[in-house]
């Protein structure tokens, strides 16, 4: 006995509309990573040129959307567009006169708007903060991963003194915590699951860590790149294992507070 739908299927219902042939795969992801790294590298030559690179990359994401053929590519493109937009904001926003920690706090506002808009293309912001299959104890364990990571980062990428400007320590800690939130939501919250859906677990983990590390190219330091890649890899792995962003956000907050505030106070007096 078979059931037949009372609604007649439109002709060629399973065929994609003409021109929708773009599927985001590994070659395109590597191309995007190269373009992002080149734009970051241009920061060493000229900030307006780098801004142009970020702008073109963001616009390319918008141009590509109508040609995407599958749901996973459509989910990934807003995130791939959001990253160069955030970098363009970092370069172009008039914050050069701020000390580094207040500067991060000011930049966090437009970054959070980008991340919220990118999140809302697929699901609600609240869904990002769900615990997943893991419990609070697991999330707490993820937060503790930040301590050894912070030691590695502090050794590889020493912090310039005077970063908090005139801010008291507590206020600087709060600003740092708020500053890393959108950044972490973008790279581990949105980018990693979207890339994993397209490229698989292992490639997704490495590619998202490499994209995160690419945003440190302008520091022109192998230590900074290695530290960023290690952070991206460790937090990305935790994100994959727990299927939640709660623990990794907590870990990033602990990491930056240790690296920017606690360790300089302990080791430099």
């Amino acid at each position, binding site marked *: 006995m078979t059931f037949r739908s009372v609604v007649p299927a439109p002709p060629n219902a399973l065929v994609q509309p003409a021109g929708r042939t773009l599927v985001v795969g590994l070659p395109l992801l590597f191309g995007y990573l190269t373009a992002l790294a080149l734009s970051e590298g241009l920061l060493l030559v000229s900030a*307006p040129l780098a*801004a142009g690179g970020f702008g073109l990359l963001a616009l390319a994401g*918008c141009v590509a959307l109508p040609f995407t053929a599958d749901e996973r590519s459509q989910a990934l493109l807003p995130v791939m567009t959001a990253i160069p937009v955030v970098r363009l904001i970092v370069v*172009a926003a008039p914050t050069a006169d701020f000390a580094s920690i207040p*500067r991060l706090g000011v930049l966090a506002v437009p970054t959070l708007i980008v991340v919220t808009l990118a999140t809302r293309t697929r699901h609600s912001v609240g869904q990002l903060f769900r615990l997943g299959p893991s419990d609070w104890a697991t999330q707490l364990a993820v937060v503790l991963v930040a301590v050894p990571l912070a030691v590695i980062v502090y050794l590889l990428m020493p912090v310039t003194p005077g970063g908090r400007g005139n801010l008291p320590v507590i206020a600087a800690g709060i600003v740092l915590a708020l500053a890393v939130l959108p950044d972490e939501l973008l790279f581990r919250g949105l980018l990693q699951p979207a890339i994993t859906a397209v490229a698989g677990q292992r490639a997704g983990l490495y590619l998202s860590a490499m994209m995160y590390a690419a*945003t440190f190219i302008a520091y022109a330091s192998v230590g900074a790149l290695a*530290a960023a890649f290690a952070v991206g890899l460790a937090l990305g792995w935790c994100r994959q294992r727990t299927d939640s962003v709660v623990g990794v956000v907590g870990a990033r907050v602990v990491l930056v507070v240790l690296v920017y505030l606690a360790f300089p106070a302990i080791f430099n007096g």
Partner: protein
Amino acid sequence: MTPSVPPPVLDFLRYGDAKASMSAGLVLLAVLVVALTAKALLQSASPAPRQDAVRLLNILAVPLFIVFVAIVVERFSDLS
């Protein structure tokens, strides 16, 4: 550690050509204009434009507009 820009680039943004006509702010303005134009064209082309395309353009336009307003306010405060 948060991806920002290193001290040499910050120095350029403070004292370099950033204050002249070839600034990163102008690039931002160009991208903003392109995004807003694309959004206007998309919305005028059909009564029910593709929501995902409009949302993607919003990712560009909304934060860049806020930063553009901040740049304008900063320039005026520099003049006064």
